[in-house]
């Protein structure tokens, strides 16, 4: 599906990839995350050739270097908002005090400073996606991947979320890639690329 794709994302930059349904936007994200393997060629992220990593190495690579934001939020319903945000830190073995401080910092950054002890069912869609953004950035990843992060949100919330994502990526100095078919959402990104059957091209 994807052929001759080359993509460099500078640190502190959010790149939006637009494209029709079925063109391979999500596949591209999966390749970048090491969740899919390319039939040919290499995927190099943060200087690592993902093809040379086995499943466990890839998992640990994702744990350390990548943050994810999903269309359907995927906030665990049985954890509090704060616990959800702190999940990557728990996997990385942060001590409790350090983790608490970092979670509080991230919740404040996404505007949920007072919702740390709330359960996800008490949050709106926009708040859930803010939680997901906080979780994606809490462990200071080099790369943040977002798959249709505004797909389940109303236009106002969508604008707020994508803007927040961009600001957080900039502030964290991470590289961000967001795939979407919403031009309005893409407009908030630093760069916008169009994925078509003939490849990836820069748009205005």
């Amino acid at each position, binding site marked *: 599906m994807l052929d001759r794709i080359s993509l460099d994302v500078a640190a502190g930059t959010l790149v939006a990839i637009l494209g029709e349904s079925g063109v391979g936007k999500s596949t591209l994200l999966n390749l970048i995350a090491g969740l899919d393997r390319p039939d040919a060629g290499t995927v190099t992220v943060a200087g690592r050739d993902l093809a040379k990593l086995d499943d466990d190495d890839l998992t640990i690579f994702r744990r350390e270097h990548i943050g994810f934001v999903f269309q359907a939020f995927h906030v*665990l319903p049985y954890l509090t908002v704060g616990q959800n945000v702190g999940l990557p830190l728990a996997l990385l073995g942060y001590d409790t005090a350090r983790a608490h401080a970092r979670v509080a910092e991230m919740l404040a950054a996404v505007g949920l400073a007072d919702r740390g002890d709330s359960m996800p069912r008490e949050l709106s869609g926009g708040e859930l996606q803010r939680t997901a953004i906080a979780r994606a950035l809490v462990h200071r990843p080099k790369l943040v991947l977002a798959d249709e992060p505004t797909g389940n949100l109303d236009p106002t919330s969508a604008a707020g979320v994508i803007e927040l994502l961009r600001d957080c990526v900039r502030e964290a100095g991470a590289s961000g890639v967001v795939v979407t078919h919403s031009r309005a959402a893409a407009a908030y990104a630093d760069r916008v690329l169009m994925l078509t059957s003939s490849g990836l091209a820069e748009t205005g």
Partner: protein
Amino acid sequence: MTAVVSIPRAVLGGSLARFRGRLALSVGAIALGVALGFAVALVNASAVAEFTGAMKTLAGQADLEVRGPRNGFDETLFATLARDADIAVASPIVEIDARLEGRDESLRIYGIDAFRAAAVTPALVPSTDDPLDVLRPGIAFITPAVAAQLGVKSGDTITLQTGLRALPLRVAGLATAGTGERYAVMDIAAAQDAFARLGVLSRIDLRVRPGVPVAAVRDRLAATLPPGIAVAAPADNAATTTRMSRAYRVNLNVLALVALFTGGLLVFSTQALSVVRRRTQFALLRTLGLTRARLAALLVGEGVLVGIAGSTIGLVAGYALAYAMLRIVGADLGAGYFRGVAPALVVDPWAAVVFALMGVAIAAAGSFVPAREAARARPAAALKAGDEEQAFARLRSPLPGIALLVAGAAMTALPPVFALPIFGYLSIAALLVGTLLLVPRIAAFALRHAPAIRNAPIALAVAQLRATPGQAGVSLATIVASVSLMVSMAVMVASFRQSLDEWLTRVLPADMYVRAASAGDSAFLSPDDQQALRAIDGVTRTAFLRVQSVVLDPAQPRVALLARDLPRDDPGSALPLIGDSYARKRDDPPPAWISEALADFTAWRPGARIELPLAGKRAPFVVAGIWRDYARQQGSVVIDRSTYVALSGDDTATDAALWLAAGTGVGDARDRIEAALQGADRLAISTPGEIRSLSLRIFDRTFAVTYALLAVAIAIGLTGLSSSFGALVLARRREFGMLRHIGMTRRQIAAMLATEGLAVSGIGLAVGIALGFVMSLILIHVVNRQSFHWGMSVHVPWLPLVLLSVALLAAAVATTLVSARQAMSGDVVRAVKDDW
């Protein structure tokens, strides 16, 4: 192509397609429960039908039956009754259970007066070419079942035992009888002579003159009959006999119902989880206009369909199982209540209807709570992810559970109903259901107090369980039910077996035991035989026993009267007494020790003055104590044999206990007995060890069906556990996909799930063991006591319980890991994109 889908298809179609495996499990569980219940009911119905049919044949047209002690009453009573103005015909009968030579079984012999029996019990009068055969000595008529059993025909000889002698009888023909009935008929005078019953009758059948009220005659005669002799309608006597086995039959039925109940739990867990998984679908259908009532009805209907399918399969399987049980285990399912009955399988349409309806009702009930919750859910909330636990919110109210526990505890204090421990069963059911309702709260409490662990997979597992006690409760329900049933039965059976073992050790203090015959009541040791045993070289002490049975209450079976040689200085020391003994006073009548069962039936207590019917007279005794007797469910009383001989004149014995001198082996003593006594080869000579192992073998055989039914219930419960675990794990694929995205390895997810499985099973095991212990106490002190009137001390089979617990935990973890592997198979990372 059709563009319009029916609403039932929209609601149920998804379930049938997606949860086919689990629905099949539910159908199988209901089928198994129905099959077991129906099979036990059919076997019981067949046995009782055959038994009561035989009783009817033997009672013929008699309006009343006069019965007395098992070894008979004075025949002069016959003359008195025959002359009674209200009696049209009186027919005397002698009944003997004679041991069949060379076999450890007996044959019931009816000695009849052919002329009188023809008018009352014509079925007992054989038709023969030579009518005088029915009057000749040395001749017997046997039923076709006996002919088939012994492989004999007319003209052949059968040999029975009387005293220690052989008694050959020529078979003159076949008696008319039902297919399974086993007995022989001979002339009454010949029977009295052959079996040393001269001047004695066992029964007198009476036909009352037309127009005379039978009840009035019965009441008048009852007031005038000698002590220990009772008159009753034949049907009442049959009912008295079948009542003895009723508690056992009811117990088996209850166990079969337990299997059906665990099947219902499996339906509940399957439906609850399947409904939760379809919650958003239902919310959408509700949004589109499907009413609450219709949604609930459709989901209960789903359970009804499971019930119908399960019941249909269960009835067919139950019939086949009953057929096999009758042939392999026997009509009494191993308990020995219906000896001499080999019934054909009776189809009981009512039992079929009842069990089919129960199967459907239990499956529908299992679907009811999930259906109600699905219908009550607010569509807007249900459409949101993370709302699943709300489906279980209503199960979390503690009040119904607490109320059931209180009711269950209160019911243990209530007396039996119609001699059955109905409240005992209800108490166990209430405690079980009450605990199941409280299980989510108990789980939440336990998890709240779980230590904080920093390991991410374990912390996530604990967080997941803490937040979803309702969903965990569904898995816990099956494990708690299975474990508690397993523990309660294991403790009860182990307690019973251990108590029986200790009792046998206590009641078998001698070195060897001699019984006049291994079966029947036709054999005895004469005074000469007793003297010969006393004189055996190497025998230092002997104690003889005469077993008899007497009528204390016409509405109850005969009570065993055990006349024993007891130690002079402390007679009670020879018995396993329970509770306080009565210190006998100088002017008290002779002492008697009654069994627990007799104490229950009569309310007699130590110190009570009682009368026992002996030789047609009332003999006064004082209850000196209550003893434990696991051998006689109908009750027994022990008196000193010298008192018995003095009162009854009967100086024969049926059993002897022998103590041997040091250096005298059992084999030596056996050889010397065979040399000293004529007919000694007919004696049953055993060591205490042999009697113990035989008794325990019979015990294990009696409980074999119990074990089998319990094993099925546990298997259904564990299947439910694995089914609900599997469903819960599969429902979380999207969660696993997200966790894989953010860096959890497969091993960590498996560790998380194994922790959940271990925690749920551990909590279930702990609650189940605690509940099982409580239930075992009710089984021991209420159900067993009220059913069989046997007390026992509590013995916990620790090692088997520990092994079973470890096996259960291992099985739970293995189940979780298999489910995890299944859930992680394929491209789980893509599950983050999954919709419904």
